[in-house]
């Protein structure tokens, strides 16, 4: 399963600049555990008057280190919920979920992941630089070190000239870039993204996808990426997880075989492999459970 990640040169890229900033927080015990391990996880929301909504059912998924996994499915299928379980913003009702071998709760406290939402969610009273430094400041990283890290990240997301601007002076795409830089601030080995480009126009969106692919190649972080755009899911991911409508189950996992993150450039969008994967995902997405489609959950 995880062998496909050989070409992404995970080990090389994790040692890229910045990993030293907060690396001390991580225990050595978790070095060989997968980024995310989900075993038989279910989530039931208690509604009004005892009504139950089954959001997720029997989810089994493993995300290897440095792997990019997209979650896709019809709206309301629980893809965001699944990401929120990994982030420990919600707790599963059943099953077991670990992040780098730790419980999701511990992983959150240890800052094992960075997170970005559909709304950039920048604090309007902080400059771009201060927004990026927010998690570092909250975790008492020294001023000089904070500044060094934020300068690196500003350069990485191409906003070095805007460090002293306030969020309301930036376009939506730029705000989202700041949010991504912020999620990278503590050099996490796992990025959780909930439709981060959902509110952007198509042009900016494609550009940001290219940016993200580049950032992933640079940092070597594993990514769980929630989206409802098929081309976006395929373009970015090593594997695309297709969820069924409620109750959310994994209907199929499509291996895109499109190469490492560094190969995700614009000409990939024109390639036949890309189109093949897009149509494969689309078939799973639109097919019903009643008609088996040959390939099952691998």
């Amino acid at each position, binding site marked *: 399963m995880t062998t496909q990640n050989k070409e992404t040169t995970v080990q090389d890229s994790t040692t890229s600049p910045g990993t030293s900033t907060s690396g001390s927080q991580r225990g050595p015990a978790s070095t060989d555990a997968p980024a995310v391990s989900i075993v038989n996880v279910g989530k039931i929301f208690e509604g009004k008057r005892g009504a139950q909504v089954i959001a997720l059912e029997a989810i089994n998924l493993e995300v290897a280190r440095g792997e990019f996994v997209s979650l896709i499915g019809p709206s309301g299928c629980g893809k965001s919920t699944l990401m929120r379980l990994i982030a420990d913003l919600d707790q599963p009702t059943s099953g077991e979920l670990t992040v780098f071998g730790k419980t999701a709760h511990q992983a959150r406290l240890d800052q094992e992941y960075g997170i970005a*939402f559909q709304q950039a969610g920048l*604090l*309007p009273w902080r400059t771009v630089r201060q927004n990026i430094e927010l*998690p570092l400041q909250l975790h008492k990283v020294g001023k000089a070190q904070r500044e060094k890290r934020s300068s690196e990240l500003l350069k990485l*997301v191409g906003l070095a000239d805007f460090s002293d601007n306030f969020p309301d002076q930036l376009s939506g795409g*730029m705000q989202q870039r700041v949010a991504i830089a912020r999620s990278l601030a503590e050099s996490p080995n796992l990025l959780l993204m909930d439709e981060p480009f959902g509110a952007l126009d198509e042009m*900016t969106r494609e550009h940001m996808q290219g*940016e993200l692919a580049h950032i992933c190649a*640079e940092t070597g972080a594993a990514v769980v990426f929630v989206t409802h755009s098929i081309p976006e899911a395929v373009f970015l991911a090593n594997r695309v997880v297709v969820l069924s409508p409620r109750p959310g189950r994994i209907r199929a996992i499509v291996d895109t075989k499109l190469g490492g993150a560094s190969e995700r450039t614009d000409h990939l969008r024109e390639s036949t492999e890309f189109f093949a994967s897009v149509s494969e995902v689309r078939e799973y997405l639109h097919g019903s459970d009643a008609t088996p489609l040959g390939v099952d959950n691998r």
Partner: protein
Amino acid sequence: MNTTATPTMQVETAVPGGAKGVRSRSARAPRKSRIATWRKAGFGALGIVFVGLMWELYKFIGPEKGFTLGDITILPRTNDMSMPHISTMFERLMEPLTGASNSVTMWHAVVDASAFSLYVAAVGWLIGVTVGLLLALIMQHFRTAQSAVLPWIILSQTVPLIAIAPLVRRWGSGIEIGSFVWENWMSVALIASYLAFFPVSIGALQGLNSPDTNHVELFRSFGVGWWKTLFRLRIPASVPYLIPALQLAAANAVIGTIVAEVSIGLKGGIGRMIIEFAGAAGGDPGKPWAPIFGAVAIGLIAAGVVGVLALSVRRYRRGETSA
């Protein structure tokens, strides 16, 4: 491995004119806002002049004896006793307070009384703001406290001030701890705080609860607790709600002070002066207006001080203009 130079170049071409647009906008901003400030001040002054003009205009064209329909007075009398000229009011301010040879001038007496009332109001404001903020914090932290405390806070404001004033005075007069003796002005300050805490507690609660789920969850994902979230997120986010609340509290504290001075019978403040001078209207029409100007002045000073405070936390109000 790619170099970092590539994405930077991509970005700059992808955001046409982005850098330029932002820079020129921020450079233009100060001059524009200065003009806006002057314009605002100009309109404010114009408003005062307008009220004065209306007063004099009515005095000029209105009926001398007023106009009554049956027993109901529709239009007030315009004679010099009922409606003195604005110039009379200001002239009176410059004259001595009493006929005695060693009397201070009227404006001097008014300034003294105003300063005293302003001091009492300020103490009341500080107590009110402190209590209001604490209540808001408790209500934010404990959801059950919110449902238990909020109704009482609202209920507290339905009790008429005149009813509490004598009670507070009586309770206060019993207090004597060591060298500390409760004085009447403290009762007045307490009553002022009773009016001042209300807008603060309501405004602060709304402000502390104003960050959306997005931000709250972000802080949760950072793995930080309630206190850090409070100082880095909730308090900064509450500033736009807090400033108007603090201004309301300042106005309330001034009103509370003046009314409490009257109902407790505290000497030395502007409230007592208003009552004392009101009786003089018959022979000295300009006199009752002097303490009224004083009351207006302390109201303006109180609101102005909060306004200046607001300037220092301007950056926290950025979210108000655009999201």
